[in-house]
């Protein structure tokens, strides 16, 4: 099996997700892209797990999924909060940190 191809695949997917994070202005889409990046990593883990024939990769995936779930929950809660207080979800309006 050509594992290199799988690694390249996960890399490509990761980059695509990154582009989403970096370019999109809609918060929801940014978050979706973030999840997709994590997913790309998962693919890498599973491929590597098969390649190296150890289960560690798969165990890590469990971890990643857990963290991703927590992250999604928090992020979406933030979005809700944001929407309630500021009435918008556009990323480039979130410049409050810079004064």
């Amino acid at each position, binding site marked *: 099996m050509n594992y290199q191809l799988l690694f390249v695949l996960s890399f490509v997917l990761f980059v695509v997700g990154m582009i989403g994070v*970096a370019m999109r202005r809609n918060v929801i889409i940014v978050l979706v892209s973030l999840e997709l990046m994590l997913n790309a990593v998962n693919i890498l883990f599973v491929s590597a797990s098969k390649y190296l024939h150890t289960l560690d990769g798969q165990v890590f995936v469990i971890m990643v999924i857990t963290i991703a779930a927590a992250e999604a929950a928090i992020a979406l809660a933030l979005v809700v909060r944001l929407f309630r207080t500021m009435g918008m979800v556009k*990323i480039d309006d*979130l*410049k*409050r*940190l810079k004064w």
Partner: protein
Amino acid sequence: MELNVLRYIVLSPLIGFLINGIGGKRLGHRAVGLVANATVLISFLIGVYAFTVLLSMPVNERLLTDTVYTWISAGALTIDVKLMMDPLSVVMALVVSGVGFLIHVYSLGYMHEDRGYARYFSFLNLFMFSMLLLVLSSNIVLMFVGWEGVGLCSYLLIGFWYEKDSAANAGKKAFITNRIGDYGFLLGLFLLASSLASKGVLSLDFTAMAGHVALLSPAVLTVIGVLLFVGATGKSAQLPLYVWLPDAMEGPTPVSALIHAATMVTAGVYMIARMNFLYVLAPTALEVVAVVGALTALYAATIGLVQNDIKRVLAYSTISQLGYMFMGVGVGAFSAGIFHLMTHAFFKALLFLAAGSVMHALSGEQDMRKMGGLRTKIPVTYAVFLAAALAIAGIPGLSGFFSKDSILAAAYGSGHTVVWLLGFITALLTGLYIFRLMSMTFYGESRIDEHTAHHIHESPKVMTVPLIILAALSIIGGYVGVPRLLGNIFGWHDSDMFVHFLAPVFPVVPAHKMPVAVETWLMIGSIAMAVLGVFAALYVYVTKRMQPAKSAAQAVPGLYRLLLNKYYVDELYNAVIIRPLMALSRSFLWKFFDVWIVDGTVNGSAYVTEWASARLRKIQTGDFQVYVTIFLIGVFSVLAYFVLR
């Protein structure tokens, strides 16, 4: 010989100071006065006891010591709190505690009305402590403790009526001027210590030093001598650091008598006498001392001629007399200098106290132009004043005559003709100014205004008794040191007792032996000068009612004004030293250098940083996607580096 009661001479006034200083207000006048006087009296009595012990010892072993504890110990340098009493210190200690005690008693009456009664006496006791420490200490550092201590008390007592700006300023001036002198003194001390140390002796004990100064080169000794003398010019009000003493008259009059006439100001003379072992090896330094002393004597006497404030005349007179003392020690006649120190302590203390009594009678008036004719109104004061005036003028038979004459004789005999001449002229001026004072105060018609005249009264007993005792001392005090010449004439065996007593401490002055005829003529000359001065003053100020003085002042107004304004030395110091220094500090060092240059650099670097970050900040858009992009570029750059290298 170890004699452990010495420490109580010093300690007793200190205890008095502590009791009055802390207990002060709560004790009440009576207790405060009692404590202050009793402690000084105890010192005096112990001093007398020690004196008798000293007398009972063989002449060359007359030395008592008392080691109390080790004060400073750093490496090889050890400084003990150790007292010593040799003939020189015992003279000083007895004069200080004796005259001091009389002035304490006098103060009971003089200061009775004052609000700061307890404060006054505690300072006075502190002064006695410091002064006795100064004269009894056995090493130069401990002596410096007393030296500075008396300076402090002088400061506190000059500024005693601190609400008067003039008093406050005078106190500060005294302290700072003294500090300038002390700076010289300290440098001299350091040079002495370090040069002795380089010879392997690190001790500042007088006796140890005496045994080793011969190891040092004359040049070093001369520098040390001059530096120490700088200290003396500060403390003893000699040129050029005398300026504080006239102003010091702002203090209460007994203080002027005690500190600024009888005791503290003579500390410089004592110091040079104490360091005689060094000075005899440094003739150039002694020469400096003699010349400065002679110049000061003449200089101050000329100023004293025209002053109108009774205390200021006495102040300049003190400076002038101190000049005599330095002249004496400067020509190597240490015992003559100390002799004059002692007699001067008697009559000058008396002059001041009597002047205080005059002021007391006149409700505090100090301007002699508003006095006159007091002779009959306050006879006791007049009588004692006259005794003192005759003594200071050098009228034969009174104490001042003997001491002043021995100084002049020594000056001439040792070949210091110019110095002698200056002293000789000063003798005339002395008679002149002191009888000018007498005339303006006690003779002639009264110029006192009605209101004051009404209140004139003789001082109470507590004040007059010390005056009378001092008057007695002023008259007979000189007989302990009758010059050999006179002794031979009158057939006294014990003539020159004083010199003999001090002989173990001082080297013999060989130049003192000169032909009898010369000595006789010198004596006759100085008597003539003194008498001339006295009668000239009486003639001008009493017989002619000041007219000649006034016309003389009009004839040479420039000179008159120069003298009246004390040669403008204060103004000169002000313009040349004080103002430029203040201007330099304020305008240049502080407002420009410190604020602009030093702090400007510090703040400037902060501003540059801030400016740069304000520019760099533009990169920080706050847009997190920009950050992500930059971050990604970074990640890929690193990755690319590792992949492609």
